[in-house]
């Protein structure tokens, strides 16, 4: 299955029953998959919205009723969704937002890119909030982590972003879908009509600054718990490594190809791959710097995750960078050449 279809199937299996989206390349297969399959499952709603803005607000409304929800788009469309993502964070509404990144800024192009890292990991919209950001690197991870994303969104009642790129979305790989966990989402958070009881209201508007501050701190404490408990990462051949590449998603796949090549030439290169970009696995990366002093950050951008790596390593190790922004996708041999140059220059 293509990555886009894997996300769609995983979402439906995870119990997603409301999807709204608007066409944009390179994620159209996901919207089309949902159009074909969502209306055939019981209670499933598919809506092609009039805009990205409408789509995110539709999933917010559906989420409030207690349904598992998802929307998807690609970079420019994700910019449009930020209003609603901020609103969902404020109103503590769970939901999945898929960003199949393409070249930017502006309309950019439709080639794979990783230029939305800042936007994704720093909230993206206005106000003091975070979204959990998950960056799968294989078809199998797209399947597993999409399902997990729904559990995380429910657990912390917040939007969770799946951050992949056009390569991940279009690439075909075999996958096995795991059994989803039974959903645990308390009815008290659902808006389904007051019945004979007290009416509820869901809102992010808090005019009193003291109350609003308290709400912001409440969200911040939630984000702290997430930062302490929900980081995911992969270490690949770091045990004897003298230089470690830090890369995520498609870049990490390219890095693995480069490492295979470099290892065959006797160069001791490893990979640290953050799977959650927020929370960033900074403690794990810092721990690695106790014995490894050379890192090379590789991104399909001009250097965004690079800043998180600098924050994590706090000057305890050397950091080099290689980036290809704007939809350019390097080959493993290109990266291998860059890494070899650094490796040899440092006389490792």
């Amino acid at each position, binding site marked *: 299955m293509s990555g886009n279809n894997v996300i769609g199937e995983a979402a439906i299996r995870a119990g997603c*029953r*409301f999807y*709204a989206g608007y066409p944009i390349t390179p994620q159209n297969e996901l919207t089309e998959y949902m159009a074909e399959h969502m209306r055939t499952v019981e*209670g499933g*709603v598919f*809506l092609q*919205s*009039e*805009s990205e*803005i*409408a*789509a995110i*607000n*539709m*999933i*917010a*409304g*559906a989420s*409030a*009723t207690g*349904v598992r929800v998802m929307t998807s788009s690609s970079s420019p469309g994700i910019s449009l969704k930020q*209003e*609603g993502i901020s*609103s969902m964070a404020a*109103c503590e509404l769970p939901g999945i937002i898929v960003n199949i990144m393409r070249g930017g800024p502006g309309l950019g192009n439709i080639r794979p890119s990783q230029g939305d890292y800042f936007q994704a990991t720093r909230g993206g919209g206005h106000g003091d909030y975070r979204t959990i950001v998950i960056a799968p690197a294989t078809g199998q991870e797209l399947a597993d982590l999409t399902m997990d994303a729904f559990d995380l969104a429910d657990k912390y009642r917040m939007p969770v972003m799946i951050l992949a790129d056009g390569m991940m979305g279009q690439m075909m790989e075999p996958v096995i879908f795991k059994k989803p966990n039974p959903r645990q989402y308390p009815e008290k958070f659902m*808006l*389904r*009509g*007051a*019945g*004979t009881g007290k*009416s*509820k*209201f*869901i*809102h*992010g*508007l808090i005019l009193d600054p003291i109350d609003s501050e308290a709400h912001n701190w409440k969200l911040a404490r939630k984000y702290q718990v997430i930062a302490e408990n929900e980081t995911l990462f992969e270490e690949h051949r770091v045990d004897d490594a003298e230089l470690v590449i830090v890369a995520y998603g498609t870049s990490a796949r390219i890095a693995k190809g480069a490492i295979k090549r470099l290892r065959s030439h006797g160069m001791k290169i490893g990979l640290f791959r953050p799977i959650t970009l927020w929370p960033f696995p900074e403690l794990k990366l810092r721990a690695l710097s106790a014995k490894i002093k050379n890192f090379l950050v590789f991104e399909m951008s001009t250097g965004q995750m690079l800043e998180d790596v600098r924050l994590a390593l706090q000057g305890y190790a050397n950091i080099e960078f290689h980036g290809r922004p704007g939809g350019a996708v390097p080959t493993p041999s290109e990266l291998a050449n860059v890494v070899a140059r650094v490796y040899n220059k440092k006389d490792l």
Partner: protein
Amino acid sequence: MAKTVFKHPESLKEAVFHYCPGCGHSIAHRLVSEVIDEMGIRGITIGVPPAGCAVLAYNYFDVDMIEAPHGRGPAMASAIKRCLPDRVVFSYQGDGDLAAIGIAESFHAANRGENITVIFINNAVYGMTGGQMAPTTMLNQRTTTSPTGRKKELDGYPVKVCEIFSQLRGATYVERCSVSSPAGVNKTKKAIKKAFQCQVDGLGFSLVEVLSPCPTNWKMTPIDSCKWIDEVMAKEFPPGVFKDEIAEMKKSAEAAPC
């Protein structure tokens, strides 16, 4: 035995309105609440208030409510209704919310024939932000952003929501009313009830536009505001039924096997 002829609606909380004296929102809130009471639908109604003066509507309506970002009410309401088809879902919107920033969401909810009800308060200004020019501001009307009056050459024309929305095949019932007089208030209530009934009967999109006074931003007394609605606004925005396909929809709903 004494008969109760007037009481506080059950669907309206006992809170004191924050609205300015003479504002039409309080009347519209009350009318919606009375209709909800009379139809016995309080427990199954979900409301979506707008950004604008009515953003705090959830402090007044005693029904489940969820805030929408500015203009997005109909997108949210569409989704809520799709997930909970047996609930009664309404969005409550101002002129900026519906006819400017949220025109796409409102237009397409109507065009999809979403089985929701839109209560549209038209007071020809942005009230909450201090009286700026709205899409429904009258030509030559002075606002803080049209200080010498709205000029058609520079600012365009007042947007006629009912006239436009009644052209959409997805819309079933579209009426414009006014709360500038007791007769207008009664008519408005009837229209709101008809709109909600249209939804309860599963007949599709309904919209009630309410010409509503904003004395504070119009810089008029409440009485002059009502006069201005009748003498000036109603000329540009004539009250009336713009579309009523309730009977046809009912017939085709009965004819079509579910």
